[in-house]
């Protein structure tokens, strides 16, 4: 029966132009999504490169200025910006801490339209006030980005619904079901085989189209084959889930209209409502502390410590006797006091910051517990991981920047407290930031996707058998 059903499906779907129509739709959607995703990534890469170029140009000017000063020439610049001062370099010549896009960034916008991809931490700046948020159009946020993850998560299920909502019901409505059922076949098996063909068709076309587009775009598919395989498996898991749902609805035997409405209802519920409700609940149960309040606290602490900066500096030097020993000038400027107090401010703020981070962690853990409720969440999360645009990627980036800010600051501390000048020779020792991407495996989500489909199919199958509700009875 399998061979005949496959040949039959191939012929009927080809002749009524369904296959052509679907092939074109999938090609158009994936092509546009890839183009759109690439545009965003290119813009991101251009922004980062522009920022890096700006720093390079500024560095050239800085080196020229240092050279002029070292030669004893007069320079026309405010004294606090002259780069022989380590604080001038640390503040006015910061490095770019950029989160370079991953090779697969174009498949899922993820959090990338919410966060910026480069910052420039300075020695005197506050790490916690670094602004990582990006200005984004609220309309864009409402509708999402038309990228590959959008096509897979939102549009593929709709294509599957349109392609499979009436497998059995159309036979009933056309009158061919009675003739079919008069043969010694199992209607459940018959429906499964028809859906299997359609599943294979959608899967094959999607894989070929994606692979083809990536190759045409000049994407090195073979060096990134692991990620491509993950992407394909996640997509197949999700497509399989929707075909399992279509099978259940087909066998439950409503009219074509009822099947379509139920499947569309499930799409709305699983793709739109469940993720949104879970997100809202997560925010209600674990509300994030206000960032504004945190910054206000920080300002208050700064005011407090600014009133006792001399005392703080004394304490700081007591804790760092190496600076006091090496310093022969005893010259204590604004920055000596300011930087010492900055350390204290950071220490004092630690509880508030960790409360913010802990709450975010708790919120994410809570959401993780329920992500199985919607395969759309599992797929979105997996694709964001592959693309390197997930919440955890941006969290990792933020932490790396924070660590780099410390490295940057600490690099200048000995120069500052030893009252040494920054020279041309010191330039090559300036720390630079290199983003280390956080590889998160999608195996668990993938397994969960297939397990959900399996459990759903098995539960329905068993309950169907227990009820003794044979599909053939649904003809009447």
């Amino acid at each position: 029966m399998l061979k005949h059903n496959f040949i039959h499906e191939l012929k009927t779907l080809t002749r009524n132009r369904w296959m052509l129509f679907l092939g074109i739709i999938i090609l158009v959607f994936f092509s546009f999504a890839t183009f759109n995703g690439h545009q965003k990534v290119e813009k991101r890469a251009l922004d980062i490169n522009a920022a890096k170029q700006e720093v390079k140009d500024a560095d050239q000017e800085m080196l020229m200025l240092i050279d002029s000063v070292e030669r004893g020439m007069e320079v026309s610049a405010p004294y606090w910006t002259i780069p022989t001062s380590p604080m001038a370099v640390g503040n006015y010549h910061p490095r770019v801490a950029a989160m370079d896009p991953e090779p697969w960034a174009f498949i899922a916008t993820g959090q990338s339209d919410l966060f910026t991809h480069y910052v420039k931490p300075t020695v005197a700046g506050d790490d916690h006030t670094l602004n990582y948020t990006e200005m984004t159009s609220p309309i864009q946020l409402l509708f999402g980005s038309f990228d590959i993850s959008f096509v897979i998560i939102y549009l593929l299920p709709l294509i599957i619904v349109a392609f499979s909502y009436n497998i059995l019901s159309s036979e009933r409505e056309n009158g061919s079901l009675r003739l079919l059922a008069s043969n010694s076949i199992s209607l459940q098996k018959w429906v499964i085989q028809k859906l299997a063909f359609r599943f294979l068709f959608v899967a094959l076309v999607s894989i070929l189209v994606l692979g083809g587009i990536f190759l045409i775009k000049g994407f090195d598919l073979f060096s990134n084959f692991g990620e491509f395989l993950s992407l394909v498996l996640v997509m197949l898991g999700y497509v399989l889930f929707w075909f399992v749902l279509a099978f259940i609805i087909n066998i439950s035997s409503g009219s074509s209209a009822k099947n379509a409405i139920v499947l569309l209802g499930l799409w709305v519920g699983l793709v739109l409502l469940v993720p949104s409700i879970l997100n809202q609940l997560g925010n209600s149960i674990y509300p994030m502390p206000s960032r504004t309040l945190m910054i206000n606290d920080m300002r208050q602490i700064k005011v407090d410590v600014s009133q006792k900066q001399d005392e703080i500096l004394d304490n700081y030097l007591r804790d760092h006797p190496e600076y006091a020993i090496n310093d022969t000038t005893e010259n204590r400027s604004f920055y000596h006091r300011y930087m010492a107090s900055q350390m204290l401010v950071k220490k004092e703020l630690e509880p508030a910051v960790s409360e913010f981070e802990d709450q975010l962690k708790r919120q994410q853990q809570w959401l993780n517990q329920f992500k199985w409720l919607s395969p759309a969440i599992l797929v979105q999360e997996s694709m964001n991981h592959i693309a390197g645009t997930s919440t955890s990627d941006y969290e990792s980036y933020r932490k790396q920047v924070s660590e780099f800010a410390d490295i940057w600051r600490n690099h200048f501390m000995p120069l500052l407290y030893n009252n040494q000048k920054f020279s041309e020779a010191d330039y090559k020792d300036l720390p630079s930031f290199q983003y280390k991407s956080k590889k998160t495996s999608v195996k668990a989500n993938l397994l969960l996707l297939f397990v959900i489909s399996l459990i759903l199919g098995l539960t329905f199958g068993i309950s169907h058998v227990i009820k003794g509700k044979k599909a053939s009875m649904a003809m009447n």
Partner: protein
Amino acid sequence: MINTNNLTKQYGDHIALDRLNLNIEQGEIYCLLGANGAGKTTTINLLLGFIQPTSGSAFINQLNVQENQKKSKRFLAYIPENLMLYPTLSAVENLRYFSGIGGKEFSIDELEGFLTEAGLQKEAHHKRIASFSKGMRQKVGIAIALAKDAKVLLLDEPTSGLDPKASNEFGQLLQTLKNKGVAILMATHDLFRAKEVATTIGIMKEGKLKQEFTAKDITLQQLEEVYLNTMDYKQLVP
């Protein structure tokens, strides 16, 4: 070949079929006559296993239909009132599909042979079903039965909507199948065709088999009279 033993189907208080006993042998054409709702289609549905009997049992080739749903269907073919095939496929492709899912493989020549035997013109063999008349589709249905080598043929109002020529051709095809030893049960309103093709005629009313007689023992006029009497339509006869 086709047997029912006190076959009864009840929907709530309504008895759709009341203790029906039928015995149709090989090479016999049994025509069930009756008004709408008399229980003819219910009988066929029960023999096909589409519905479960409230009591009693139905047998195809000595197999209890309810206990051997898939097995019993191997021996039967069914032609509904409106035989709907796949419109985008040709007659040969439809025939190949329906015989294929039943587990039978045939070459194109063999498939064309069945269609020719069923009376379908050669030039129609590879045409799409969408362009077929009802009579032509019924012929494909007969070809499906021939390809299946069915021992039992169940027909539900197969001649309704057919023009006299097509109806006559259909009757001849049934005779061919009868001569091959196929047991045929045909539910119909068509007294004339029933008289023409049947070996036995049964008249049903309100789920009960009211009359049963051998077709050759009765004239068409007598059949009509008995039918109208059974249906209490006598007063309408001029």
